[in-house]
């Protein structure tokens, strides 16, 4: 009945996702004259950039449609794929529209890429965001606040609006609304996964990386209202799985669809985490910059890129399985990804202890063949359905 509405918004999101020349960013710049600054996975405080009038542009590699011509000359074969496609995008001019790039501290590859960017693009703003691994407000909090203040100063020096607390407060409010809708969509997918297929939710979130948050809000609202109103989609006999490990280099889009077609409802995942890194609303009263700092310290997801001091490793995954009603876990990490692959044995130990079935495979963003994974995921989903003794709906 309303599938057209869904198709419309998803198609628009897909266009944005597939546009490796970032035309929407160029258009935005032409129209506003503002700065656009790219950022690598997983998290940056987009609120701050937005409050200074800067368009934050999430760069998640080149996917499976980008031809790598020069990028391979920058990386050995045993390094993941995302840095070479990102360098390719830099060298082929696609990222010319960006006035700078931010590199959050998530692994040594991204860290070293920040230095390469400095050498390759000396005229651009290049900033490594050293996120704290100490979560005491007086120690890690102070350090992180200083990092954010520095970032704000550097953006201003490049022509952005100076930091303004009220503007940040408004931006936080807007981002809170967007995060709330994303959470709502995740919750809806958990309850009724046939209504919110993961490949659609993925495209919607990817669109949110390249458009201003006001526009993203419209996309989110349109999609949410359309899927809520939909009467056509009906449940299928599929296994409910949680997919983890794909937080940085993203799997090829075809792989996500393949997993769904192989009999899996993905009811929780690690894709495009910037919209979900902060798990609840950021406080809006008081000092907004400090609120952003505290949200990072206290309300961030338990990513493998963060030091987990108190809780047992893997407990978070066990909790997520319970919360999402998943019946099994797919470990789906990029090849050569240190954070994901070093974390995996600890996570496996925790879920095995909890009696949760799992399977694991690796990918590169430009893989084109999914047959083996399709069979593996299909077998996994069949075994879940068989052993659970009931239809997974």
């Amino acid at each position, binding site marked *: 009945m309303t599938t057209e509405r869904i198709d419309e918004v998803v198609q628009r999101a897909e266009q944005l996702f597939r546009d490796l020349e970032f035309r929407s960013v160029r258009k935005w710049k032409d129209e506003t004259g503002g700065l656009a600054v790219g950022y690598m996975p997983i998290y940056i405080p987009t609120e701050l950039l937005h409050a200074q009038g800067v368009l934050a542009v999430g760069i998640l590699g080149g996917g499976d449609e980008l031809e790598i011509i020069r990028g391979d*000359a*920058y*990386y*050995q074969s*045993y*390094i993941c794929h995302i*840095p070479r496609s990102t360098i390719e995008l830099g060298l082929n001019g696609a990222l010319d529209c960006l006035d700078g790039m931010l590199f959050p*501290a*998530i*692994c*040594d*590859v991204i*860290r*070293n*890429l*920040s*230095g*390469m960017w*400095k*050498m*390759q693009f000396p005229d651009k703003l290049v*900033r*490594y965001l*050293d996120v*704290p*691994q*100490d979560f*005491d407000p*007086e*120690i*890690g909090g*102070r*350090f992180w606040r*200083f*990092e954010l203040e520095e970032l704000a100063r550097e953006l201003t020096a490049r022509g952005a609006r100076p930091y303004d607390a009220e503007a940040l407060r408004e931006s936080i409010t807007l981002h809170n609304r967007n995060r709330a809708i994303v959470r709502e969509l995740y919750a809806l997918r958990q309850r009724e996964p046939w209504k919110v297929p993961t490949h659609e939710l993925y495209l919607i979130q990817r669109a949110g990386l390249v458009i201003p948050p006001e526009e993203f809000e419209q996309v989110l609202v349109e999609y949410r209202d359309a899927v809520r109103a939909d009467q056509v989609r009906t449940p299928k006999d599929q296994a409910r799985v949680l997919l983890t490990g794909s937080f940085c280099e993203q799997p090829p889009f075809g792989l996500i669809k393949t997993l769904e077609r192989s009999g899996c409802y993905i009811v929780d995942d690690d894709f495009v985490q910037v919209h979900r890194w902060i798990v609840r609303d950021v406080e809006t009263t008081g000092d907004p910059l400090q609120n952003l700092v505290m949200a990072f310290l206290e309300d961030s997801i338990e990513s*493998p*890129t963060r*030091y*987990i*001091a108190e809780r*047992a*490793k893997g407990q978070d995954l066990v909790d997520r399985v319970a919360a999402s009603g998943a019946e099994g876990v797919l470990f789906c990490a990029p*090849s*050569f*990804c*240190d*954070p994901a*692959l*070093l*974390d*995996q*044995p*600890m996570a*496996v*130990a925790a879920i095995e202890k909890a009696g949760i079935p799992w399977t694991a495979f*690796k990918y590169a963003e430009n893989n084109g063949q999914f047959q083996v994974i399709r069979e593996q995921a299909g077998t996994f989903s069949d075994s879940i359905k068989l052993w659970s003794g009931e239809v997974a709906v």
Partner: protein
Amino acid sequence: MKGFPGTPTEAPPAHKDDSQLRQKQMLADHYGRLARAGETGEKNVYTFVPGNLTELVRSFDLLPVLPEINALQSAMRGKSRDYIAAAEKAGHSEDVCTYVKCDLGMKKAGNVGPTGEPLPDPDLLLLSYTGCFTFMKWFEILKQEYDAPVAMLHVPYQADGMVTDSMRDYVVKQLRENVIPKLEAVSGKKYDEDRLRGMLAESAKAEDDLVWVLESARNRPSPIDAYFGGVYYIGPIFTAFRGTEDAVDYYRLLRNEVATRVERGLGPITPEGELGEERFRIVVEGPPNWTDFRAFWKMFADEGAVAVASTYTKVGGVYDNGFRHDPDHPLETLADYCMGCYTNLNLPSRVDMLTRYVKEYHADGVLVNSIKSCNSFSAGQLMMLREVESRTGRPAGFIESDLVDPRYFSHSNIKNRLESYFQMIAQKRSGAAV
């Protein structure tokens, strides 16, 4: 860690200098104390080579244990293949750092250390998170294996090629409020700043002599090999002995020996004995391979190639830029030390360092040994190599191996590549001479 340096216990050359014997004895004593810890009650702290806080740890009478060193020792003793296989069998990915897997395999095989004696379980895991992401995961894994407490010290990266006050304050505060209280709890002793100052003063003395030794490679012929030989020279200062009298004595002895070689116009000692003619002077970037260490060195020695400078010998501290531990500012100097380790420097700084080495050490070129499982070192090396080549006009070479996984040491391939590289240098030279 960067595949850190070593204190290989297996002596390289057949002939042993007094300094080598001295180092061997220091190691034997140290590992002996660790082996007897169960009876003596001595406590230990597992930590990493880069950003190690040896003086601080020792000021509490705690003994440092360096898992990276254990891993490289396991490789030199031919055990790493099985250890890595055991870890992979237990679910650790083939794609990740082999030091971690080697360490886990060693633990599963009884945690027998380099001298054949068992190592005690850690009383504290001091996670000095400096220059390598893997460190964090490594100790998260060990925390589960041993159920040991962890002191996390997050050391910010020198992304802009400098240390800011905010970065220093951040590290100092963590030392004061997190690391020191945990060391106090484990040792049952109060933090004694005067004792720490005294040790830092000893560190600086040893550091002076180490720098003198490394810089002796500016001579022609170079009296040392600053990569293969260098890993022995950095041993005491990068591991458990910085800040001790033993280390001061060792470096004085070493310096005197090297000074004698300079006076006599001698080249380095290699596994095959004294190097004959010095034909090529090379700067090396990246850690060595440990599984075939002697064979690897021989490939250089057979060609008359000497490493006159290396970055690997800076992973546990960069001292040839003038940094010395400063007893007047004990925690601040430890912070600066941690932030200054080689892999905590950004890529432009690493390129600057290599370029400077090529020039100051009159090298024929720079050679990268790219380590398959070490993103900290390896990601970006191809660009670094091109940059150094273009800035110096000297040819760059590139080989690939692994730290401790023998599957990734292809003898013939590496030998061929090295021979071609040395030939290229020779041709360039003769071309220039025409």
